[in-house]
């Protein structure tokens, strides 16, 4: 199975996930990964990620297939948490295993850009005991534009 796509409602161990992914793809010379975590040291007390089941996981699976089609990879991993998280908790782990380093970097970078901007997640942060919804960031659209994709539907 070349794509390992999961939507997780419990904490996960990114180090163990990465080690298992690398082990499963020993024919690949390299594995690039990105781990996103809830920032500590801010005034954010908690993060809550909502998804919409009929769209979110299918969208992640489609992204995984798109990445596999676009680069010569041995495998791709996209794991995303939903629900309430605390500072230091892992939110997302993306990894790409490839024979060539450049392919692994580009695939992981692309997956993160598209996951952040085109996946069905709604995020709110708790500050001083109050929840606040997070709006889209302009930077995400600039990141997406790097890939010369057609405009978002």
């Amino acid at each position: 199975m070349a794509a390992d796509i999961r939507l997780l409602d419990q904490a996960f161990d990114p180090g163990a996930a990465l080690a298992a992914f690398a082990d499963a793809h020993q024919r690949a010379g390299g594995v690039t990964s990105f781990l996103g975590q809830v920032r500590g040291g801010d005034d954010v007390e908690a993060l809550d990620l909502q998804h919409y089941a009929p769209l979110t996981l299918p969208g992640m699976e489609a992204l995984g297939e798109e990445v596999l089609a676009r680069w010569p990879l041995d495998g791709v991993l996209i794991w995303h948490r939903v629900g309430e998280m605390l500072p230091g908790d892992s939110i997302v782990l993306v990894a790409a295993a490839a024979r060539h380093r450049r392919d692994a970097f580009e695939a992981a970078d692309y997956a993160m850009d598209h996951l952040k901007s085109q996946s069905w997640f709604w995020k709110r942060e708790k500050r001083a005991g109050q929840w606040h919804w997070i709006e889209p960031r302009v930077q995400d659209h600039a990141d997406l534009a790097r890939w010369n994709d057609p405009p978002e539907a």
Partner: protein
Amino acid sequence: MSVRLVFLGRLADVAGVSAKEVAPGPLTDLLRGLPAGLLSPRVKLALNGMLVQAEGLVLDSGDELAFLPPVSGG
């Protein structure tokens, strides 16, 4: 059976609930009983898991219609 409306993200705050059962019929009729601001050019709609346009939409019993505001950035 009725139609299930699902409000994601901040739209749950706008609607006051995250989901609601309503009677089948045209979308324009259903919206009459709901707070303003649920539909805008930036809000997408999914009918039974497929993205659809609001214009002319008629909901049958058993349908699920989701209101999807812009997704949150990274």
